[in-house]
C-alpha cells in the first residue's frame, strides 16, 4: 500500500500527473485554489502502487509519495 499527498495550493493544474498515473487515480478537481488553479485530486478509494510517476513529472514539486 502506498500513498501520495498533493500540495493543493502549489498545484498549477497542468494535469501532467493525471496523464502518467498507471492506475488513473489522479483527476482534475472541481475546486480552485487561491492562485486560481484547478488543482488535482487523488481518488481516496483507489490503490496507489507508489510508482512515483506523478511526482517525477510534476514541474512544481507538489507531490509527496509514501510507501
Amino acid at each position: 500500500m502506498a500513498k501520495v499527498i498533493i500540495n493543493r495550493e502549489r498545484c498549477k493544474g497542468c494535469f501532467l500527473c493525471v496523464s502518467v498515473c498507471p492506475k488513473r487515480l489522479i483527476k482534475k478537481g472541481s475546486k480552485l485554489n487561491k492562485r486560481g488553479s484547478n488543482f488535482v485530486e487523488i481518488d481516496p478509494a483507489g490503490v496507489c502502487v507508489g510508482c512515483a510517476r506523478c511526482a517525477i513529472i510534476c514541474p512544481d514539486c507538489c507531490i509527496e509519495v509514501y510507501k
Partner: protein
Amino acid sequence: MKKIFTRPEALKDAPNHYCPGCGHGIAHRLIAEIVDETGIRERVIGVAPVGCAVVAYDYWNFDCSEAAHGRALAVATAIKRLRPQNIVFTYQGDGDLAAIGTNETIHAANRGENLTVIFINNAIYGMTGGQMAPTTLVGQKTATTPSGREGKGHGYPLKISEILSLLPGVCYVERVSFQDPQHVLKAKAAIKQAFLNQIKGQGFSLVEILSPCPTYWGMSPKDALDWTRDVMQKEFPLGKIK
C-alpha cells in the same frame, strides 16, 4: 510508511513563476536532487541565464550568480578559475546559449573549462514572447515566423550539441527529454554524469534537455510533452553524442 519522494533540500519550498507544465520546473528539481545526492550543496555555484529562468537563484537553496544574456559560460569560467574548489554549473535556454551566447559557449567548450552546462532546448524564446530561437524547427510557427520557419532565409535548427561535440576540449555531451517519467529519470542520470565529470576534474560537460514550453507552442502541457517525443526528436535525436 516511508517517504519515498519529496522536495530535495536544495530546492526552496517556494512557488515558482513558470507557466503550468513548463519543463524549467522539472529541470530545477533534478539539479537540486543531484546536488543533494552528491553532497555538494555547500560548494556548488549555479549561474542563472537571461530567459524565463532568470530568477532560478530564487528557487535553489545554494549559491548562485546571474550573468548577462548569453554570458553565463564567461561568468562561470571566471568563478571556476578563481575558486576551483567549487562545483560550477550554468543553466541556459536556447536563446541564451545558442543565439546571443554562441561565442561564449563555443570558446568555453573549446578551452575545455571544467564546467557543467544544463541547456534547456524549448525551441523558442519564452521570456520575450515566443520568438524564433536558433533551435526552432523548420515549419514551426513563432511570433517572428508566423507562417513557420523556413530553412532558407531563417536558417536551419542549430545543432549546437553536435557542433560542440567536435571540439577536443569537450568531455561529455548528451541529449535527453522530459517526454515521460522514465525519460525524466534518464535526464537525471545524464545531469548527474555531467556533475560527476566536473567533480572528477574531467572537463566540459553539457546536457541538452528537450523541454516543453506549452505557452508559446500553443499546446496543452500533455500535448507539449508528446510534441517533444513525436516532432522535436526527429530533428534532435536523443542519446549520448560524446
